[in-house]
């Protein structure tokens, strides 16, 4: 399986109903397959951070077996709008 920023973005959008996804390939920073993702998804509403991250982990379970380092930022659409405004 070839994991690319694109493939991650597609999977997150399709399977989690994310409204906005940014995926950065940070492999060069870490010497092995690494990604940094920002996911904006209405399903995060009302969920604590850990639960949000676990949702993403479940969605990307297969890919995470190959990924060495993974950073994620999980926001609700409301938090995302607020962050953009700041």
């Amino acid at each position: 399986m070839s994991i690319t920023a694109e493939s991650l973005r597609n999977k997150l959008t399709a399977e989690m109903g994310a409204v906005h996804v940014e995926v950065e390939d940070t492999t060069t920073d870490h010497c092995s397959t690494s990604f940094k993702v920002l996911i904006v998804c209405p399903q995060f509403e009302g969920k604590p951070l850990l639960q949000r991250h676990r949702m993403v982990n479940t969605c990307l379970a297969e890919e995470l077996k190959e990924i060495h380092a993974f950073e994620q930022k999980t926001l609700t659409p409301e938090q995302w709008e607020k962050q953009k405004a700041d």
Partner: protein
Amino acid sequence: MNHLFRLSAGLLRSGTAGLYRRRPVPEGHVSLVVARLFSSEPENSELGQLIKKDKVVVFIKGTPAQPMCGFSNAVVQILRMHGVDDYASYNVLEDQDLRQGVKNFSNWPTIPQVYFNGEFVGGCDILLQMHQNGDLVEELKKLGIHSALLDANKDEQKK
């Protein structure tokens, strides 16, 4: 109930004494080298014991004195900023079984991993966000740990 856990932990420990070697590390943290394979046994009980032994438990790459990874270092630095220096730290680089075992146990794919009072908190991202939004100070308070940043803030307000 807690005293029962401590009792049984003590019994378990004496029973498996030969399987654990404790090596005191200069900076005061104990690094546990597990001689037994995690996969064959109910690792839950062993890891389960480990994460309950101390209020704050972290599994990192390297040691607090010498973290071997940027994310692990972030966890160490954040704890240091809050004045938390009495915590248990386990180096997953020393033990591949621990490294995989803790991922299975918490159902979390990466290291570092942070536990408060035996409960999985998250990795570096989550700890950082908790630090930034003030949740970490609150969680530490629940553990009976007074964050150093609270004093720093008080000093600021006095000025």
